[in-house]
């Protein structure tokens, strides 16, 4: 039986309800909140600051270092052991690679920009939510960037190409593929492309076309979040 009705009743190209906010952590240099469906990401940016251990320093430009972390009871299953693990290490690494192409740290040799992303609640698409949140936080921190990065997962569930898979779709009892994609906005360059599962060539092309449209929607929200921060007067003085 073909998958033509999604488990949560969305249209095939419809993303889960999203919400984003910039500048939510006062002590951080830049911060953001990004929510897509039941997945929530908080990103905080610190730096540029001194980079240690010293062998990581690059005398030609500053580097970006992401720290991805799922909180202990963020998943729907068992408690997740907090702190780093193999999975978070890999995701932190792909986040670095996804964000680095647009970030210009040539004015900050030997320094590092740290991006901490915490996920208090997750329902698939965490690395995409993390990247989208990190991009808002980096812009909020005033880090020179050529463009924003928007990220969303696309995939195929039992032969049907869909956007933004939720956990129930990822775990659907059929052939499923989950493809997280991150893209720059202006040039539509792909900075993250991973895949789990199986997909045909034709479907992959279809999925990536869908990703183009979906990341566009994320971009609009990111821009809105950044502009909203400066829309009204601030007046929270004790």
């Amino acid at each position, binding site marked *: 039986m073909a998958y033509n009705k999604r488990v949560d009743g969305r249209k095939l190209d419809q993303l889960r309800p999203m919400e984003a906010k910039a500048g939510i952590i006062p002590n951080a240099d830049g911060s953001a909140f990004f929510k897509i469906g039941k997945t929530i990401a908080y990103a905080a940016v610190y730096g540029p600051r001194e980079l240690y251990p010293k062998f990581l320093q690059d005398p030609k430009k500053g580097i970006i270092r992401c720290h991805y972390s799922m909180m202990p009871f963020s998943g729907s299953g068992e408690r997740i052991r907090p702190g780093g693990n193999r999975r978070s290490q890999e995701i932190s690494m792909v986040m670095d690679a996804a964000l680095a192409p647009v970030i210009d740290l040539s004015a*900050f040799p*030997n*320094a590092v920009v740290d991006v901490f992303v915490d996920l208090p609640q997750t329902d698939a698409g965490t690395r995409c939510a993390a990247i989208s949140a990190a991009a808002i936080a980096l812009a909020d921190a005033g*880090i020179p960037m*050529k463009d924003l990065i928007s990220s969303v997962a696309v995939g195929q569930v039992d032969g049907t190409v869909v956007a933004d898979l939720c956990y129930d779709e990822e775990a659907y009892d059929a052939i499923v593929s989950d493809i997280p994609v991150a893209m720059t906005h*202006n040039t539509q360059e792909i900075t993250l492309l991973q895949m789990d599962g199986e997909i045909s060539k034709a479907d992959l092309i279809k999925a990536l076309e869908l990703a183009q449209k979906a990341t566009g929607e994320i971009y609009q929200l990111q821009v809105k979040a950044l502009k909203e921060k400066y829309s009204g*007067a*601030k*007046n929270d*003085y004790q």
Partner: protein
Amino acid sequence: MIKEREIVVPGECLAEGLDYLPGENTYREGDKIFAKVLGLTGISGRVLKITALSGPYVPRVEDKIIAKVIDITMNGWRMSTGTAYSAMLNVKDATTRFVNRDEDLSKILAIGDYVVVMISKVTSQNLIDLYMKDPGLHKISGGRLIKINCQKVPRVIGKQGSMITLIKDKTGCNITIGQNGIVWIKGEPDKELLAEKAIKFIADNSHQEGLTDKMQAFLGGADHGLQ
């Protein structure tokens, strides 16, 4: 084509065609000019620039900053500038008096002291040299230090220092603003608090216009509450 004083995000297109030139915090790609940081647009003649609303401090020669002594070396002090780069203050640039070769430098400046200093040299790798012999450069004692984002410093100072003069006049505090965003306030304790609130208000609302008037009302008001 973008309007003046509009908020733009990184990667936003500011203008098309070759009529305009990319200024501060912008870049050209093909025949388009894009923003490089989150900030307010500014147009001066044919040049488009962005005034950043937040961002790291980039050290520049002749900037007056407030730095903290973090280490003492053979011939001077290592200072923290509140950025990714520490700075050096040489003994000969710190004081006009004769310093003996075996003198204990911590008698002049101890670890943890804050000083108002001038940047005398910056290299491409952001190695910073400091200077402390000019009038107005000195060790800090008393008062309170607050930190604001360095991009808000020009707003807190105001045109020809109008904003900071206003706060100084109304609160009677001594205020020194470092370009790196560290502000030293010294005066009566309650007035210090008022000055601190005023500076934080300006920093948080720097993207708005007519701040001097708001500040006048804030500092002139009897209850000192922000409306």
